[in-house]
């Protein structure tokens, strides 16, 4: 027979565990950030992480953006043409790309690419004693490995999202003009008329937050991984899953902050 108190206990244990790991992650992130304020700074490590985040993520993010812009144009056309509201399409494309799809899809793609790679790299360094070795060579591993990656995430992902925004709008523009027969200059005019600074800023702030979360999850899970190849695999999975969920959750919170009045 199942004791109902067991269930209560399980919920309690789960809650305590969640609170404890949230605290651990927050402490880890705060420690990492605090190292950005005190020298030495590792510019090379930052640059490597930055290039990994931005340049090497560009192809996958660009493709995602173009296709999502295109598909929104197509979907809203099939829906809105029933009410004769085709003129709204330019606005729908640009607003959904800049406010939501740009940051969220780029964030999810980068989490899968860079977050996973970070967790695997740091995890391997952990289980092969490389992180311990740093400490014996006058190098603080949090400062050398974690801080530059956090900074790179915060700076690189907004740049990536800016590119994704442009390409997403371009995808919608292509479908609307080539396939749906819109007037190109009219489409562009309504695109720019509807877009406000707040939309752009909100999208980029989201991107910076997502970049931080991706780097934080990649570093945290990698840094604390244990138990050989299997542990590194588990750390990688956790990093991607946690980053993806956090991106979606923070997307809601930030949208609430910026747009809900």
């Amino acid at each position, binding site marked *: 027979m199942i004791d109902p108190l067991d269930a209560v206990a399980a919920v309690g244990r789960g809650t305590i565990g969640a609170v404890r790991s949230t605290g651990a992650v927050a402490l880890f992130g705060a420690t990492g950030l605090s190292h950005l304020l005190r020298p030495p700074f590792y510019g090379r490590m930052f640059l490597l992480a930055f290039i990994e985040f931005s340049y090497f993520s560009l192809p996958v993010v660009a493709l995602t953006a173009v296709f999502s812009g295109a598909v929104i144009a197509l979907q809203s056309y099939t829906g809105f043409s029933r009410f004769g509201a085709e003129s709204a399409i330019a606005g729908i494309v640009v607003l959904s790309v800049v406010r939501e799809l740009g940051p969220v899809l780029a964030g999810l793609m980068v989490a899968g690419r860079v977050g996973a790679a970070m967790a695997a790299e740091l995890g391997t360094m952990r289980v092969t004693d490389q992180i*311990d*070795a740093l*400490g014996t*060579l*006058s190098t603080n591993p949090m400062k050398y490995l974690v801080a530059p990656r956090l900074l790179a995430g915060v700076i690189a992902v907004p740049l990536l999202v800016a590119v994704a925004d442009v390409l997403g709008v371009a995808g919608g523009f292509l479908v609307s003009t080539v396939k749906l027969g819109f007037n190109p200059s009219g489409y562009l005019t309504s695109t720019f008329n509807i877009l406000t600074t707040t939309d752009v800023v909100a999208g980029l702030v989201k991107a910076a937050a997502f970049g931080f979360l991706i780097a934080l999850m990649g570093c945290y899970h990698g840094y604390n991984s244990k138990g050989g190849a299997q542990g590194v695999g588990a750390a990688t999975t956790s990093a991607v899953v946690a980053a993806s969920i956090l991106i979606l959750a923070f997307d809601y919170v930030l949208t609430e902050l910026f747009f809900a009045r």
Partner: protein
Amino acid sequence: MSDPKIRIRGLTKAFGDKTVLDGIDLDVEAGTSMVVIGGSGSGKSVLLKCILGLIEPDAGSIAIDGRDVLRLPRQEREQVNARIGMLFQAGALFDSLTVWENVAFGLLAQHKANRFEARGRAGAILAQVGLDPSVGDLSPAELSGGMQKRVGLARAIAAQPEILFFDEPTTGLDPIMGAVIDGLIVDCVKRLGSTAIAITHDMASATRIGDRAAMLFRGKLVWQGPAAELLDSGNPLVDQFTHGRREGPIQMELRR
């Protein structure tokens, strides 16, 4: 008598219900080398990691130059660690860097050299451990196991630390290279005046490297004495171990 360089008292560490170190007392005098022997899984590597602060012991004290390092604030602790060089059992080379960058890592981190000088010095240290300086441009993954060990050794001694830890420095090397490495370790201790703790399973190497020796068994140091007496210590545990006998007080136990 002056304080020993490293003084360990009552060091205890358990993982779960498995007690690995059970009240270790060990003194290492400045400028001498201590060899620690003991069965596989007896906690030798854990002992070194405790001294380095990589594993937090459950009880006991570790004093370096008379200061209890377990109770130091983090920054001072880092300063102490900067004076310790360690060769890890599995090398722990940074695989994202080249061999010479590995060797020069500590020099660069401590700003003891710029990149150009560091590169030259790395080449010289590689030559000391019997590697051609051109190896410096390879990545650690391109080296054989024994070569990786020597690069790890080169990295540990590069910044000429006051204290050196060697976790099985000669395992995986051919006998001649093993003797060369032993000579190098002795040289570091004698010429630089470093204090060393070396873990080894190789009795020839132990008597060459060590001034003193200690044996770890079931979490305790069961014997300490001059390294020269390892082979005829009169202690039945040490005798069986150093002569590699199957029969004796040490029975093979299933480790958990």
